[in-house]
């Protein structure tokens, strides 16, 4: 409803910004009330579907091992690419987006996104948790440095301690994440560690630490995932028509969001992980097959005996667990002086561990940055969405 009254000669908007607004206003009015030229919009929407499917196929069958750090980074990359395209679609269809029934769809979509933000924060805490373990491992690799001529008792002692700290750290995480009602016992006084034993670890009864700073004690990743996937169902024929076709990309993007968040929770330690989220995507959608396949493979992984109780399904966590256990056993069994073959065994495992440790450092940093980026992109895209529903007259381009 144009405010034609105000387009008098003494318009308050002398600046260029206004004239762009007027141009857009005219564009919108031209589009108002009828579909955009059917074919180009259809092409755009179809293109998005196809591209998403391609990306997901590549993720499912590409070179990266499922649930490894490089794979997770690729997963987030897929999300970012899809989201960018989706943003463009929203922009190009903003007239439609700001009206019923699409406005409701979009607002639901952004609600899901907000819930995903909390997952991002929890995941970030989880990455920090893994970093803490990584620090212990670094100490192990320093202690068992291959450049040392021989491995002395001292080095083994140091490695052993670091491995013990690691084990405690991983166990704590399980305690903390195992129950959503895990209780963080705050003692405002200090307990005096008049420890008599050298091997005393800092766990006076009842005080264990959770490294979760971003979510409250009662937060649950499993619940959050359920909430993100709540009411998510494929649009019916009449809905698709009523929404000018937009219901389909909205459903696609929502599904991608859900899967990405679910996979992150599966892989990275976080509070109250749960993998029971229901995934049912009709195979009508070309992107459904790769998602369902990856979902199945991840569930399978979670059922494997040695991974049942793990903190997170991340491949690297598994590698750490294995190496650490192996090394601990070797070290525990070691008698001094160390026979050469035993020393070789230890060095070998230490070598494996060093390789893991070295690549992990950078990967973890990169991953954290990516998670942060996903976080900010989600916020930005939501702000834009609000702008579309606020007004299809005015558009602010964010940077």
């Amino acid at each position, binding site marked *: *409803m144009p405010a034609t*009254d*105000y387009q008098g000669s*003494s318009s*308050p*908007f002398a*600046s*260029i*910004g*206004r004239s762009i607004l007027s141009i857009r206003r005219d564009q919108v009015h031209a589009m108002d009330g009828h579909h955009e030229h059917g074919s180009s919009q259809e092409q755009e929407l179809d293109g998005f579907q196809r591209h998403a499917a391609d990306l997901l196929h590549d993720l499912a069958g590409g070179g990266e091992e499922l649930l490894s750090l490089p794979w997770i980074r690729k997963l987030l990359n897929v999300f970012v690419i899809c989201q960018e395209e989706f943003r463009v679609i929203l922009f190009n269809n903003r007239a439609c987006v700001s009206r019923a029934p699409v406005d409701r769809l979009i607002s639901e979509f952004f609600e899901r996104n*907000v*819930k995903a*933000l*909390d997952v991002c*924060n929890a995941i*970030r805490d989880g990455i*920090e948790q893994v970093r803490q373990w990584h*620090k212990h491992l670094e*100490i192990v690799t*320093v*202690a068992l440095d291959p450049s040392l001529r*021989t491995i*002395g*008792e*001292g*080095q083994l002692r*140091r490695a052993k301690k670091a491995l013990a700290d690691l084990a405690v750290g991983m166990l704590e995480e399980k305690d903390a994440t195992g129950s959503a009602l895990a209780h963080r016992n*705050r003692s405002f*006084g*200090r*307990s*005096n*560690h*008049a*420890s008599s034993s*050298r091997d*005393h670890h*800092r766990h006076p009864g009842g005080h264990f*630490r959770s490294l979760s*700073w*971003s*979510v*409250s004690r009662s*937060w649950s990743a499993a619940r*959050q995932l359920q*909430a993100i996937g709540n009411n998510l169902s494929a649009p019916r024929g009449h809905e698709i028509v009523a929404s000018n076709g937009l219901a389909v990309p909205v459903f696609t993007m929502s599904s991608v969001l859900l899967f990405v968040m679910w996979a992150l929770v599966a892989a990275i330690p976080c509070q109250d992980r749960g993998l029971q989220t229901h995934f049912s995507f009709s195979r009508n959608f070309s992107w459904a097959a790769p998602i369902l396949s990856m979902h199945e493979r991840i569930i399978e992984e979670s059922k494997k005996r040695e991974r049942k109780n793990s903190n997170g399904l991340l491949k690297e966590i598994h590698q750490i667990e294995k190496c650490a256990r192996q090394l601990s056993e070797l070290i525990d069994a070691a008698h001094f002086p160390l026979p050469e073959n035993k020393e070789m065994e230890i060095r070998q495992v230490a070598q494996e561990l060093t390789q893991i440790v070295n690549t992990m450092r950078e990967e973890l940093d990169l991953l954290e940055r990516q998670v*942060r980026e996903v*976080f*900010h992109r989600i*916020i*930005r895209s*939501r*702000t834009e969405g*609000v*702008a579309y*529903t*606020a*007004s299809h007259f005015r558009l*602010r381009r*964010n940077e």
Partner: protein
Amino acid sequence: MERMGEDGEDKLIAMARHIARTLGRTDTMADDILQIFSNFDGRFSREKLSDEHPALSSLERRLRAYVSSDRPIWSDSGAASEFLSALDDLIAAGGLHPRADDLLQQCMLRLEEEFRMLIEQPAGTIDSGDEEDDSDGEDSIPVAYPVADYDIIIDAIPPGTVADLHSIATRMVAAGFAKECAHIYALSRRDFLDESVSRLGIRARTSEELQATPWGELEDEIARWVRAMSVAVRILFPSERRLCDKVFAGLSQAADLAFAEACRGTAIQLLGFADAVAVVSRAPERLFKVLDMYEAVRDLIPEIESLFSDQYSSFLRSEAFAIWKGLGAAIRGIFMELENLIRRDPAKASVPGGGLHPITRYVMNYLRAACASRRTLEQVMDDDGGSGLATTDLDRPSSSLAVQIAWIMEVLQSNLEAKSKVYKDPSLSLVFLMNNGRYISQKARDGELGALLGEEWARREAARLRRWMTEYQRMAWGKVVAVLKTDGPGGGGSGKAMRERLRLFNGYFEDVWREQRGWVVPDERLREELREAAVGMVVPAYEGFLGRLRVVEGGRGVEKQLLMFSVGDVETRIGDLFQGSSSVRRP
């Protein structure tokens, strides 16, 4: 026997030593074996069989006692210095021999324990108000500046303990155990920071939880957060830095590592709250609290930049910066939401009597209140890559904020237009428009809001108001006045025609008066203007008409029977208008 030659003897002695070592699994056993040898043959004297590394053995003797002791070494400062001095010798000797290395590792493990015990001592806590009377000077203890508002208990570590910690840290770093040392340090300090922040009423909250929190409660949390941020950035973190720099004096990398690890969690938790609030705050009434947060972070950025300038904590700088920007985006989002709300306000909710609509009152007061934070808002709006050019043209300001405000005014006026069309009576529509237009102009007349809208806008509004007024006159009173026109064709003439006109006038005037009786014009000046204008239009015409009527009737006074309203009555009645249905004076 002496003729065996030195070589031979050395070999023999070496062999004896070797046997003793391999067979003797403990030092005492080896000793015993050597004793047996020496008893057996004079050549195997204890002195000659003393081992290859006398220095190392001596160090071992000095250190083992401490390493395996059950009592904390640092409970006795004499013991501590002995231990350290032996350790220094060990480190200086270089760790090439596996025995030396092993010894070193054991010492390091012990040092870790000692460090941990020292740093976790429940040392005397100092209330923020306490004076530090230690003659070492305030430099020795990380103490908070006395803050009047709130209780801060700073964990005070006595200078002696700090010195002890430092002495341990130097050795650990020298031996390559910097990471372990920094880690233990950070664990302990993290606990402390967590508690401090907890005392300040802050806990981790997710966006969803915040969404479910009633606004009143959230306002309180935000106020607590603003305070907590200030305390953290201005007191807690700098204290930690000072402590770090003392404990790790001369060990800058370890200091940076320890500091970053110690502060990371708390910093992220605090900053995360701002993110979460920004995400859930769209409702216009939240503007002021979000502005508080924006300003709080903005004002703390310089300190944050200098605090977290080392390589390990620099990511916290970019975090803080991103969150600051995020709050700005949230504020811009709030304005968009305001626009939304105005645009969507239904047109059918019209005010009876054409008075001031609540949305007008809300928006104008809101904008006035918002403009009290003009400087900050300019910053926020410019940040969006806006023009950022605040022209000096008072007539037509074009800063991003000015553009935004003017836009909201447009949206409001557009909405009012739609609302005005709901009234069936076009005159009432105009009264509605005038009422709301006048209110808008009044509210935008001065202050920051006026400055932002500019002179030109004000002139335009005034012109519109005048237009409406003219139109109103015409619509409301035109018919009434037209009937009194006696010049021109159809006018004048017989008394009968004139009397008919009088009757019509009575009817029209009564109708209009009855219709408009319930209309409201809250603004006093506008009310007067409308009345005066109406009077000015109707009364002279009526007077003239009556005069002519008397002439035509030739003084018979018939018109007196038809006369319903004297001139005075007309004035009075018009004067009664626009007060609403209350207080209508009976003529």
